[in-house]
């Protein structure tokens, strides 16, 4: 096989690994010094090394949600500023200028060698608050102005000196500014570490060689990706699904809306077209095209490059074209609000790509996962200290069933990989008591391979009322099964008021949680793979013994007769009766058999 690079193979491998080590080291510095729980404990951030044009050369072991949009983060700075000097630091967050949603704050620093610009380092980190009327900046609003502080690329340090004008303006517009200062300091420290490492690499290999290898690393990823794409049979797959709503009550009453995609795979390239998707909606469920692309890239990488041999960078995605009608929910235009879509839409698209590819490569796709980041924010005053607080948590559900194994319970899926926050840390930090955090029996979609289970987490609000907001999907559109597998259990969010009455909440928007109330969040399970009737009875028996499936659930989702006969079956035997067909297969597979 011809080498794809000009540098000798060993030097290339060494320098490539070093560039990725730089990105990984940035993560360590950020996580260990950041202040907000979402960064330090949950890990909601990404790091990258870029060339002097803003192309991404190396991305850290980061969240897949930033695969598509990180490359735009530095290009925005390159476009906006001509004169860039050593010691400069830029900050921006605007989705209409290279950002993803306002809470994701990009900090960009140039790296110089001998007075010449070598490239950039960038840390994108999710700040738990970026202003707006709602603590956590997750309100259901109707334009980008309502979502918080917009920052086009601005210079926050100039020649190593902080620009207080900009800093003061930022910290006057966000809640808990002390915490934000710590986060910003951590982002800058991570960039500083990366710049030092890049300068050392240039010193060792020569700036010219390093620049050349930075380009070759991207070419290499492109070549790898094309090679792997040739292994996928040519053809077309399509899928459609609908979202729960945009969080805006009123004339539209938080209506559902549709997304459609076609994947056309030919040779060593692939095109993903969202023609036919609904126009952008009033509430913040509109995805900028780069967010849509993140969902596409995350799923493609899992199908094509499951072993993770292609280094993630701008080159990797050259063979993939993502097309979406301007002004649609998957290609939002200014000034549409976007905050929910960043994760809710990219989750959705990631799952839909699996659905569409099932036609071409059924043995390399998974059933639909939880399909939501299941965000709960709580804000108010801590009765113990009198201080204001904002808590931001994301709760995990099921990871879809696979062609040869069950799904995984309670783990991040698709575009997400953030961690939960330990209950004991939550209760130390915020005036709530978590009363349960547990698996939801029967929430994994039935199938030859069962979907992963979702979870339930409940919070008792203590002493003082809290202002809360929720952002979730798949309350109305349960995570679909694949190849005949059943859907996982949908999400459900409610508040049990102190008098015992339960209020069911919509999937998105803010709500009041009075002192003494219990917030109950049921996060979806995932879809099953293959017909439930083909489930190995021995596995079903184990599921029953562990309570992952209840006897009632087994009767409903598998087959009553078979279940009753279970005690007599041998391990490895198959159920002999077939489950009822879910529906006739539609021409375009859809997540919902009742919505052709």
């Amino acid at each position: 096989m011809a080498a794809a690079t000009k540098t000798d193979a060993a030097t290339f491998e060494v320098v490539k690994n070093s560039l990725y080590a730089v990105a990984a080291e940035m993560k360590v510095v950020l996580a260990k010094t950041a202040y907000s729980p979402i960064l330090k404990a949950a890990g909601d951030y990404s790091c990258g090394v870029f060339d002097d044009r803003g192309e991404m050369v190396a991305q850290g072991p980061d969240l897949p949600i930033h695969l598509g949009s990180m490359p735009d983060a530095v290009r925005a700075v390159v476009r906006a500023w001509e004169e860039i000097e050593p010691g400069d630091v830029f900050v921006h967050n605007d989705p209409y200028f290279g950002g993803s949603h306002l809470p994701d704050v990009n900090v960009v620093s140039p790296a110089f060698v001998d007075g010449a610009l070598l490239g950039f380092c960038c840390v994108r980190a999710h700040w738990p608050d970026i202003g707006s009327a709602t603590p956590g900046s997750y309100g259901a609003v109707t334009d980008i102005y309502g979502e918080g502080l917009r920052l086009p690329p601005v210079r926050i340090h100039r020649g190593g000196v902080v620009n207080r004008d900009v800093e003061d303006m930022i910290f006057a517009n966000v809640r808990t500014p002390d915490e934000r200062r710590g986060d910003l300091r951590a982002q800058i420290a991570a960039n500083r570490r990366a710049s030092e490492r890049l300068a050392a690499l240039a010193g060792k290999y020569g700036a010219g060689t390093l620049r050349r290898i930075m380009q070759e690393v991207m070419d290499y990823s492109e070549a790898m990706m094309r090679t792997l794409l040739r292994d996928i049979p040519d053809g077309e797959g399509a899928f459609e699904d609908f979202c729960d709503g945009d969080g805006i009550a009123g004339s539209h009453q938080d209506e559902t809306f549709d997304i459609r995609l076609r994947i056309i795979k030919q040779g060593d390239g692939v095109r993903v077209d969202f023609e036919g998707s609904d126009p952008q909606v009033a509430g913040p469920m509109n995805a900028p095209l780069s967010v849509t692309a993140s969902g596409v890239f995350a799923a493609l990488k899992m199908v094509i490059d499951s072993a993770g041999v292609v280094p993630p960078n701008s080159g990797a995605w050259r063979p993939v074209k993502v097309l979406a009608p301007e002004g649609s929910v998957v290609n939002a235009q200014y000034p549409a609000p976007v905050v929910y879509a960043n994760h809710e839409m990219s989750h959705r698209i990631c799952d839909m790509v699996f659905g569409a590819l099932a036609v071409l490569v059924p043995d390399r796709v998974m059933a639909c996962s939880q399909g939501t980041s299941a965000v709960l924010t709580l804000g108010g005053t801590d009765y113990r200290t009198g201080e204001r607080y904002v808590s931001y948590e994301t709760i995990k559900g099921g990871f879809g069933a696979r062609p040869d194994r069950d799904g995984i319970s309670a783990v991040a899926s698709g575009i997400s990989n953030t961690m939960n926050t330990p209950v004991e840390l939550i209760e130390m930090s915020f005036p709530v008591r978590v009363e349960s955090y547990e698996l939801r029996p029967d929430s994994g979609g039935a199938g030859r391979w069962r979907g992963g289970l979702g979870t339930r987490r409940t919070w008792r609000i203590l002493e003082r009322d809290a202002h809360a907001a929720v952002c979730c999907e798949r309350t109305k559109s349960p995570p679909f099964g694949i190849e005949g597998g059943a859907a996982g259990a949908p999400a459900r969010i409610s508040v049990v008021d102190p008098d015992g009455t339960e209020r069911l909440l919509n999937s998105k928007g803010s709500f009041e949680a009075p002192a003494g109330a219990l917030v109950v969040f049921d996060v979806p399970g995932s879809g099953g793979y293959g017909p439930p009737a083909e489930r190995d009875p021995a596995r079903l028996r184990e599921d029953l013994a562990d309570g992952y499936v209840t006897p009632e659930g087994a009767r409903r989702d598998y087959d009553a007769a078979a279940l009753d006969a279970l005690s007599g079956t041998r391990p490895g035997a198959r159920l002999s009766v077939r489950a009822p067909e879910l529906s006739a297969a539609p021409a375009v597979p859809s997540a919902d058999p009742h919505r052709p």
Partner: protein
Amino acid sequence: MGWRIGVDIGGTFTDVAVLDEESGRAGIAKVPTTPRDFGAAVVDGIGAAMRDHGIGPESVSLVSHATTVVTNALLEEKGADIALIATEGFRDVLELRRSARADLYDLFQNAPAVLVPRRRRFELRERIDAQGEVVTPLDEAGLDAVVARIHELGVEAVAVCLMFSFLNDAHERRVGDRLRAALPGLPVFLSSEVLPEIREFERTSTTAVCAYVGPVLASYLDRLEGALAGLGLPSLYVMGSNGGVFDVPEALKMPAAVVESGPAAGVIAAQRMGRQLGRPNLISFDMGGTTAKASLIENGRIETTSDYEVGGEGNVGRWLHGTGHPIRVPVIDLAEVSAGGGSIAWLDPGGALRVGPQSAGAEPGPACYRQGGARPTVTDANVVLGYLSRKHLLGGRLPIDAAASEMAIRKHIADPLGQDVAQAAAGILRVVNNSMAEALRIVSVERGHDAREFSLAAFGGAGPVHAAALAEELGIAEVIVPPIPGGFSALGLVATDLRRDYARTFYARIDEADPRVLDQRLGELEAAARAMLRNAGLPEADCAIERSADCRYARQAYELTAPLGLGPVTHALLEALADAFHERHLRTYGHKNPDEPVQMVNIRVTATGRLPGVAFHADAEAPPAAGEPQREVWWFGEPVRCPVIARGALPAGAEGHPGPIIVEEMDCTTVVPPGWRARRDEHGFILVTRSA
């Protein structure tokens, strides 16, 4: 004075090291490991070592042991059947973990293993809040029912982890008392005894690991102690993951603390060597057949970490959490990479040259062993370039087929890349050296240390072959190769101290902490530490207590451990702690924020019982390797005739012998490149230094 015996069980061989306390003379006996009953090889090996060195049982002063029993039980999922008791609403904590997946893109990854199946996880109605107050009293009737059910199940051990038990252990103690009364003899592990620290998942996991491996460890150590007593030997000590040894009852109280027993021994050996040679700053580099491990020793001190996972699938990467079981006990901080002599070289679909993580191991082995291996390995590259003998290794016992090495590299690497075999072999070494340099960087540069201020201690069968190249890469000026490099780790077992760590959560801002309360908490830990030392029967003068605290800026999530002085806790002592923390933060992350409040999270007490110091000494009479006087070795792309010298023949003068040379001995080869020189010091260590 007498002899110390150390036993290190490896995948292929069980190494028994003996050390004469008086002369420092060391010896090694190697016997094949007996996987079905590890104790058999231990007894065999000890017998062989005692015979070889004429050691009588009455002259043995210490027997210490690095055991893989705990790690294997977890890796092979062969621990005990256990039950778990949790607070109502939280029986799934162990399975819910921290909810991040181990691999971002692997569609076919497995769910992490769960040590206690859901059917054996029980809930109790009770609750303690974040202030340590009881908000729901313990439901005694519910407890009765759980105890009865556990009795019925016939489990082998029970783990108990209730919410906030690290603040208030009343409920856990009550549960423990009831279980112990109702089910005498059944091991019960309470999280408030095992790990009184915040974070429910990590605490539950550590407690469950103890219960899961406790019964296995107990029966193993029981059998072994019996066998050793039969030989007339003294009672056994076990090496902990923290690098110290403790006695069997201590090990059974805290089985999770003996997880990384073996690798710890190598780092300890390097530390003792540094002490002996006056090299307080060392990076230990241990390279075997499948992995290479690096660890940093600064000012004679070993770093430990409490962020560790055992078992599960790969967790080499320093960032993503793996699929193993977290244990929050101090483990020697080492970076391990899949790079060893047996690591296989291959080309990926993009045409890049890769090495590992697959290894040919001992079976089928590198191509040059002619034992069935056909894929090119790191060892094959070393043979092709002449760094290793093209004729035989292990003092002539292992014949080498250099033509097989060449063929493997030509077919799989050189021809596809359009290179010649020597070029391809050099490429393999550059790639593997880079990944090992990465491990060295993780423990040094990334932790804020300048590698150039350290010497490199190279051991393990392959370490001294690659060490000088790595030193060159990191700007390190000196490589030290100890006696018996291949079995050096086992020497750590005979050269260590008694050591046991105690910790508990103490959650307070330093500027707001009540010195009297802190004094009392520290006193409780110190009492346990002193009791352990007293039981070991060491003279008071050899016992030491050290204190430290895990601290962070109030809003951070990760702590750094800073030293806390001895004596009564005063405001001055606390200020010194805060200053020490700021400095560590500056050194580790490049900035500090002295205006910010510092939060204490855990307090730690370490008890050390110093055993009499020893000095290593190489056997001067070691026979020169049965090698050739010189051979063709490749440097900078050119073959050069290069002298091959037996270790015993290396000059001892300050001048030494200029490189390039190859130094051979029974179980190891040391490569000295051009621009470096090598000499033997008075203890028989090889010192390889950059020529001025």
